């Protein structure tokens, strides 16, 4: 039986190694500056230099705008829950965040389609909003966790010195938690950078030129991989692998770094509390 448990762990780690290795093996050799700087050329003759610049630019804008939308709201929700809300409301909002987190991304795509795209057309803003809906519970949860770790004695000391509540919260509690909040936000960014389903109906009708304006539909890296993966053309597969490699590296590096930092800052807070 112990052997089976060893085996299970080996299989799980094997999965990861296999995916990363598969992507790396096929992606690295295709990696070049053209991928980031050149736009795609459909039905190009062999030898024409092309890349996915529009997808990378679009992803940067989409994720950036989504972060601007979700981060302040998520932090405020967490502040309300940990610093102000009475117990039943605290549980209620916890439940709502779990429910929101559990809604499939494709349903959020349909929702934003019905909310913004019908009658107005696709736009980068619609796509960013869909991503922000996914980020919100992640940011709020992460912030709640780290705020809860800030020692109560700190709050009491500040209040005891006559500082008002809002000052204590924004000036004392929040700065203590900043490390945890940043890592939570970075994890949320890493998560939505790879999301395809929310963008499928909200920001997918795009040209081949690089565009930075979210008022029009923007291309994105996950969508590019999705479309290229269905092509029969091996040159398209090559670009899909290269894009997947860049995306995967971004996600792995940011989320592993964030996790490491989160553990560090949590330990620090615990030590301070202990």
């Amino acid at each position, binding site marked *: 039986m112990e052997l089976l448990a060893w085996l299970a762990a080996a299989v799980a780690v094997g999965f990861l190694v296999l995916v990363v290795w598969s992507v790396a093996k096929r992606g690295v050799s295709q990696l070049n500056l053209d991928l980031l700087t050149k736009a795609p050329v459909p039905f190009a003759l062999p030898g024409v230099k092309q890349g996915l610049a529009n997808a990378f630019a679009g992803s940067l804008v989409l994720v950036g705008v989504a972060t601007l939308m979700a981060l302040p709201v998520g932090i405020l929700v967490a502040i309300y*829950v940990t610093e102000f809300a009475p117990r039943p409301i*605290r549980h209620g909002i916890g439940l709502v965040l779990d429910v929101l987190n*559990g809604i*499939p991304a494709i349903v959020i795509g349909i929702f934003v389609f019905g909310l913004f795209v019908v009658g107005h057309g696709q736009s980068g803003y619609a796509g960013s909003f869909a991503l922000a809906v996914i980020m919100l519970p992640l940011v709020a*949860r992460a912030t709640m966790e780290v*705020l809860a770790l800030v020692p109560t004695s700190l709050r009491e000391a500040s209040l005891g010195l006559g500082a008002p509540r*809002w000052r204590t919260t924004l000036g004392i509690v929040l700065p203590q938690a900043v490390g945890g909040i940043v890592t939570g936000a970075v994890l949320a960014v890493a998560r939505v950078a790879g999301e395809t389903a929310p963008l499928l109906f909200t920001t997918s009708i795009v040209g081949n030129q690089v565009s930075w304006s979210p008022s029009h539909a923007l291309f994105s890296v996950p969508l590019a*991989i999705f479309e290229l*993966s269905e092509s029969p053309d091996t040159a398209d597969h090559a670009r899909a692998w290269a894009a997947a490699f860049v995306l995967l590296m971004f996600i792995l590096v940011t989320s592993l770094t964030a996790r490491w930092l989160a553990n560090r800052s949590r330990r620090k807070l615990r030590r301070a509390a202990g």
Partner: protein
Amino acid sequence: MSTFDATGNAVRRPFSGRRTRPGDVLLQSVAGLAALGTVFLVGLIVYKVVEGSRLSLSTFGLGFLAHVGWDQPHNRFGAAGLLFGTALTSVGALILATPLALGVALFLTELAPRGIRGPVTALVETLAAIPSVVIGLWGILVVAPVLRAHVMPALHSTLGFIPLFGPPGPGPSIFTAIVVLTMMILPIISSISRELFVGVPAELKEAALALGTTRWEMVRGVVFPYSWGGVAAAMMLGVGRALGEAIAVAQVAGGVNNVIGANLFNGGDTLAGWIALDFSNSNPGLETSSFFYLALILLVFSLVVNLVARVIVRRVAPRQGLAR
């Protein structure tokens, strides 16, 4: 993982009974507004999806769930084939992922040398961070050909008497979707199970071992009974992830929406996969509305799954380590 974490339990209300100031009121109302907005957002999602599906709901009613086929020329739509595909893929992935996940969790809590626990835990959780579109790309270009050429024929020739393992089809298959989904839910189930196993009191384990049981008997007699409720909740959350996955399924499953057949090696599709594949092509009116209906079914499933998981946790949490 902190899905169940009833955050803030440790924090007493340090602010109660003080006089309020304008700044306090301002911060509390702005933060409260954000919280209220979140609640409103969830309500709005439900409302929009229901509103969109109204036409289909009134036309087909619950018969939609029982009708097989997606017939654009005749304007007749039904979800039964997709529900079947969704059930098949979710259950299949659960059956493959659960033993693996429990194995991983046991390994990490009971067997692994201290030095590698941290890294292996991190690696397994990293699996959850890989975007589904990348897993789908890998599934369609790497896994599917291997399964088709080697695994499916082998399963068919040895277990072919079971209808599930019929003759391998030509390409996209339910089976490939199951394999891909297994990878996605494995880290969910294993990381929650690991926390559960960590929460088993050391005295119980030591007592069992002191009685002369083997390590495996201790696991079976102490660790599993102690944590089965939480494992059930973890499985629920895994199912929730599997049935909501659209992109990877759309890439590997094949878009066959009107077949109810046991053979896992044929093409099929799930609710989420079919929405991803064909929603953009839907005719305005009844067909678009029927896609919203599919989304509504998914929404209800995800709510039920999450609430059931929560209830299980409530029941068992007091004696387990879930609610910190």
